[in-house]
């Protein structure tokens, strides 16, 4: 597989592999950062969640745009690109929602509650 073809594949499916990675990383940070939040009285958990949400929504757009580019071209397998791009974009949007919910929850709590 050529480098450009690999890049196209990765970018079409980016919403499906990158967004879950960001969400999973934020889940782990959610276990670690509450202690720092409590000590510093900063909303670090909220910040990481919102930054993560920005990344995931960007990956959603990237999936969508990449698939549209393939569909607009003359190459084969346009239906797969359409399918992959849409599934990835929708999945990334769902992870964005989860991250936003986590960010809002982190705004409400201080990190000191047990």
């Amino acid at each position: 597989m050529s480098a450009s073809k690999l890049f196209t594949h990765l970018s079409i499916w980016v919403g499906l592999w990158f967004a879950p990675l960001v969400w999973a990383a934020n889940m782990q940070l959610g276990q670690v950062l509450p202690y720092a939040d409590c000590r510093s009285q900063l909303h670090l958990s909220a910040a990481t969640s919102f930054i993560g949400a920005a990344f995931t929504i960007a990956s959603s757009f990237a999936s969508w745009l990449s698939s549209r580019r393939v569909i607009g071209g003359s190459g084969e397998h346009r239906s797969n690109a359409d399918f992959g791009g849409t599934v990835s974009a929708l999945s990334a949007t769902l992870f964005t929602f989860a991250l936003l919910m986590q960010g809002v929850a982190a705004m409400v709590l201080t990190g000191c509650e047990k």
Partner: protein
Amino acid sequence: MNRPATTTGMRDIDIARTKLTGALAETWTTPSGFWGALATVDHKIIGRRYIFTAFVFLALGGVLAALMRIQLAQPEARLLGPDRYNQIFTMHGANMMFLFAVPVMEAVAVYLVPLMVGTRNIAFPRLNAFSYWIYLAGGMLLWTAFALDMGPDVGWFAYVPLSGPQYGAGKRADIWAQMITFTELSALAVAVELVVTIFKQRAPGMTLDRIPVFVWAMLVTSFLVIMAMPAIMIASTSLILDRLVGTHFYNPAEGGDVLLWQHLFWFFGHPEVYIIFLPAAGMVSTMIEPFARRPAFGYLGLVMALIATGILSFGLWVHHMFVAGLPRLGDSFFTASSMAIAIPAGIQIFCWIATLWDGRPVFKTPLLFIIGFIVTFVIGGLTGVMVASVPFDTQVHDTYFVVAHFHYVLIGGAVFPLLGTIHYWFPKLTGRMMSETLGRWSFWLIFIGFNATFFPMHILGLEGMPRRIYTYQPDLPWHGLNLFISLSAVILIAGFLLFFVNVIRSARSGEVAPDNPWDAPTLEWATTSPPPSYNFAMIPVVGSLHPLWSERDTLPVADGLRTDRRELIVTTLATAEPQARDASPQNSIWPLWAAIATTIMLIWSIFSPWAVVWGSIPVAVALIGWFWPKGTPEDES
């Protein structure tokens, strides 16, 4: 049946159609007799065995549930003592989760997925045979131990320190832990087979957007199994090490951590719920089409929901640990994920409702079970959102509210679709139709009996009745509801008995089924009922998501496969373009020997750590025999 290797080989295009099926049957059919039955690698035979065995375990688990309900019907009942009751609720949970729910979903997939993707056998068919024998051995270990009063008594999650060396005397907890090893080994093997089958053996033309939703569901489920099951295998193995060798994984006094057990267990345990639910959701999405007489609404949304649910399921496990004392901020992240997962579940439910709304529904028994599933699963989902909230969960933790919730999710979300599945695919399993009259009666008895049994448990939980108590005092306000629940369970049991009667009666003397009795659109209905040993005389070529609807008269087929050896088409991952012809292994007795050797090693290792050393020798011998070239045409690359 060993045949000499040939270099040229006979192709299907060289043979007249009338002789083709005979040639294929000679190559693919399992020899009759005892030895043939033990050595078979036919996915249909193994799938049927798996399904049958899983339903036997369901019946046994149901007997335990009935015993618990008799015990709890009256305060201070004396039918069961506390020790036996502890064993019974542990056996019920472990049996239903590890020996019924997960295996039966994989079993249905073992039978159906190769047919639905249009191939002749599952990938790694000998591993498939091995997985069944290992599963059977694990189940027999658990039930034999129970019969000998050695059944585990530590709950289906076996929390430490209760299951550790300090409090878990005898071998009861070890039996639980080793049963886990058996069943997870089996589940992992099937998961790998399914992933490879779906990725590499799809019929030409079955691109990603033409894969049936059930097959998508099994693909996602298989990845869940592969990622979740190692956590519980590590947990159960380290528990045995703590108990047998004296390691201290879970001993805080020596630097271990009790909470580590809960994290490992629930990292597996929550995805486990979706390992059970996602196949059921896939079954519903597939079954609903012929009964709504239109394609499922929102195919893309359904697939996205399956994938997203699968991934999100790994971020929920701490909601089982809300009272474990973790920081509330960390808990809130899991609350957020637990609520977010309701969205893909909701997408699926709205897609099913839209399919029925816009279709012309035919209310046959499978559709009744689908509707029963939607109703009960929505109730279970709503209480799931309730217990995802930390303050509420703290109040109802370890009460009958939770018992009600997870039975709504598991029976509503998995057993109802599964019973619909049996009615729907029974013709493909046996060649006969199930009785519609008995099917309707069993549905209504199960639906009414289930709701009357489990809905009042919500109220019992809110009234404070804890789980896992073997009796209660007469002055507590739980007596009336418990009696009502136990009486309602009789209706539920009657429904299941009627279902089993229907299955046995229909398998013996039911109406003979045509190839496609429901006018369904997926490939398994393109072959006979039941399918021949080679599944398809010619491999179908797929041009749409609903090949039997879009190409009703003549389904295009691929040719060029050899008939004198077991051969199938390997296709590319995304676009399913033909890539190669590959051999599929012949029958072999070695998977059985390997399973027997593994069983001896695993059971022996409950008693001595040296079993792993000495027991691995026969396992290695069996594997060498398994993989040793046999000089058959299938050995050729």
